[in-house]
């Protein structure tokens, strides 16, 4: 445990000497990937769907994943105990070292798994042109209009047999559209997994 804390403090110092905002953002993304969508043993396990929710401030980042192991499917929920981004920019070694990841999971039916994949895919296809800042990276220095965004960011990834589809959406969901329904139900599933009340029959769009 002591070694772990020491390692986190070293990690923090690494962040602290970072000279640029963007580098911090890039390390933040790496940490999110490592902790909320970690690597799996590809010989036995396949990650088929990922949902990551990153509030800009205050609330902790969280994820939901669907994985296949030996023809069985499972849903996983991961979340930090507090907001990682704010800890990273806080200059407080204690804050950063206090960040931990919590994990819950449950088995799901093949039908439920497929419905999640279908809806995630639809959200990805409906929001293809969302990440304008990513496009900007390809033409640095050009005069363009960017969007400042301080709300929650949602990431969807689907890995089916044919292709991998992925999107990062920096826009708040609008009540009524599929993006809203999927994020709202993902949040509900996340809370149910956390509280031990997860039940496939509860989620309207996956029935």
């Amino acid at each position: 445990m002591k070694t772990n804390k020491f390692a986190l403090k070293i990690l923090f110092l690494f962040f602290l000497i970072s000279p640029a905002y963007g580098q911090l953002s890039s390390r933040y993304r790496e940490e999110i990937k490592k902790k909320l969508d970690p690597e799996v043993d590809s010989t036995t396990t396949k990650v088929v769907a990922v949902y990551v929710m990153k509030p800009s401030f205050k609330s902790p980042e969280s994820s939901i994943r669907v994985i296949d192991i030996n023809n069985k499917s499972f849903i996983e929920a991961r979340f930090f105990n507090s907001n990682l981004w704010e800890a990273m920019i806080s200059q407080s070694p204690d804050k950063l070292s206090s960040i931990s990841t919590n994990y819950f999971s449950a088995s799901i039916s093949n039908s439920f798994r497929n419905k999640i994949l279908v809806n995630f895919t639809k959200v990805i296809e409906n929001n293809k042109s969302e990440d304008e800042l990513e496009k900007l990276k390809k033409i640095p220095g050009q005069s363009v209009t960017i969007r400042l965004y301080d709300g929650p960011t949602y990431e969807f990834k689907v890995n089916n047999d044919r292709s991998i589809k992925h999107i990062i959406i920096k826009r708040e969901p609008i009540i009524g559209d599929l993006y809203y329904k999927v994020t709202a139900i993902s949040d509900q599933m996340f809370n149910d997994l956390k509280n031990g009340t997860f039940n496939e029959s509860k989620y309207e769009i996956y029935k």
Partner: protein
Amino acid sequence: MKFINKKILFAVTALFIIALMPFIQSCSNNNELEGTEKIESSVELTASEKNEIINSSEFKEYVDANIEIAALMKSLKVAQQNSSKVKSNVGRTPLDGKAYKASPFDYDYDKFKLMIKKVKALGEKFPSAKKMNQTEMKSLILESISKSKEFQQKMIANGLISLKRKNVRQKTTAENVYLNWNNKEDAYLFTNLWAFATQKECAGFVMADGTAVVYIDPCATRTSCDYPTFKWEDPNGNGLVAFYNGSQITETFHVHFKSYNYSSTDSQGQELCFPNATMTIFYRGYPYTYNYTNGTTYDSYDWMINH
């Protein structure tokens, strides 16, 4: 009632999108949901509760203050339309905007202060109104205007509605506004008052010569707004800097409603588009300035109190 037809209601709806709901700010702590920060709570009011609100003097004064703010927005756009396009020697002209040279005397800050006062008064008398969402509140305002010839006449007098204009919504939502200021303190003050009164993010930048520009995006929300970026130059061989109208941009600023911290997207945008400029976030009226070179420190001061 004959006086109000569908066109007017449509126009009123469009106009109030820009200056509608300061309620949420006055009770922002209540509305920030810890879990997803995406859904604002709302409450279903009974017909009698709605009538009580609509008929109250506090609500009428609040609607009147909204009309004043909408009229101010209108005057800014007219001034911008009448000004000549700013030309740039070193940097680039803003993408699609005309800049309007402004001075603090052009703005009646009392309108903002009045709005803030009315919002608080209404919230104190009707706590349930604080929990209404934008659609519900807009509906109440429209009902109030439809019943008041005085409000209708005031809106016509300020050019906010016209029986001849066909597509008001398009006209009121398609244009961005650039406001040039002689000093950054006035730009700061305007930015904060504007954001507070309209409940939308607002942004700007400061140049090396001390002047500043405020950029108003009519499509902004409480968590997002468009922001213009400019060509980079490396005039002294000391690194890239962004220019606006021939002046080096030394600072960018924008308003946050939920935190004084910069977001991950803010940091990406700053590094990509405004290298070597500091970034100021306004939160509850206070500036928090982040220095590019060390990335994480901030300094705040209470200039707002002194204004």
